[in-house]
């Protein structure tokens, strides 16, 4: 798959797991992530009936993150903690305080992502969690590489402004670094990102 879409191969199935993973990163529970997957699927279906997005992954990431941020903003949303049993299995098995710390980080990150533009959110998730290069992100969004880097830098600055003080109080959750990700910034392992 070269990442471009036309109406002949406008299938949601190949992206479903990735959409779930994007939503789960910020929401932390599978039920909310499933709701987002369903919403994104409906939008995808509607889009494909009209003009299929040229670069499916980039379009899906933007729509997923927008919808995820909407869910986070929803005052009716019940935020589940690991104690509710909806956390991931490794959270339940590990030190509860570390689990709660990670959930607090996740919630604060989701709130900080709300302050980014749509493109900044997409670039950050693509770089941090999907392991894409600047060139790959640029191709997805049909932007120049320098523009992507500018979005990236502005996004990281905005997140740092929002989170620096809040996260200074958190113990480093490096108890269990994300799968395949090194503790120091480097290119994330792309195999583990999926």
């Amino acid at each position: 798959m070269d990442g471009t879409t036309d109406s002949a191969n406008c299938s949601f199935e190949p992206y479903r797991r990735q959409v779930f993973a994007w939503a789960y990163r910020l929401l932390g529970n599978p039920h909310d992530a499933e709701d987002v997957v369903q919403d994104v699927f409906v939008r995808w279906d509607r889009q494909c009936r009209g003009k299929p997005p040229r670069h499916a992954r980039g379009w899906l990431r933007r729509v997923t993150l927008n919808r995820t941020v909407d869910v986070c903003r929803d005052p009716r949303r019940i935020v589940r903690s690991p104690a509710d049993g909806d956390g991931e299995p490794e959270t339940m098995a590990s030190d509860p305080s570390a689990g709660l710390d990670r959930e607090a980080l996740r919630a604060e990150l989701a709130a900080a992502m709300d302050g980014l533009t749509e493109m900044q959110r997409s670039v950050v998730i693509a770089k941090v969690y999907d392991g894409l290069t600047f060139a790959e992100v640029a191709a997805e969004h049909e932007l120049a590489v320098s523009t992507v880097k500018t979005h990236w830098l502005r996004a990281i600055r905005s997140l740092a402004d929002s989170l620096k003080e809040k996260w200074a109080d958190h113990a480093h959750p490096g108890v269990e670094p994300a799968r395949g990700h090194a503790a120091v910034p480097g290119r994330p392992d792309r195999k583990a990102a999926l």
Partner: protein
Amino acid sequence: MNCQDFEMLLADALGGELADADRPALEAHLAECSRCRDEHRSANDILEKMRAIPGPSRDLETGAVRAQGLQASAWRKLGPVLRYAATIVVAFGAGYLARGTQATAPDGPPGGRGAIVARDDDSAGQAARNSFEAALSGAYRTQPRGSDLAKCMSALFRARG
């Protein structure tokens, strides 16, 4: 190198794509500029913590996605039928509510629950609408994950009752 020229190097470094040839320039500027040094350190710290937030486990992802797949394919097939059915249900529900606002004859069927005598003004109808809206708000609070159709039906029955 000034701070403005440094920005692209900083972006590359934070993105894990700094070329080896650029590393000496990056480190030289960080050594002499405290502002950029602090920004580099703080951004790295944020990125480390972001990367440490775990994604879904494979089992969770696969299981949830498998269930979602079944749900989605069924929804696709039933979508038009359900939309039609939902329209009928809402129409009947609205009519059912409206009937509750009509006057009943003194020797007519005993006023069931919710029977309201019609008045010259629309206060009874408004009361019914308020009741429905309150029930719908309650449904959204108590059933956050239920479908909108389920919430609407629940609210209709509660308001009528």
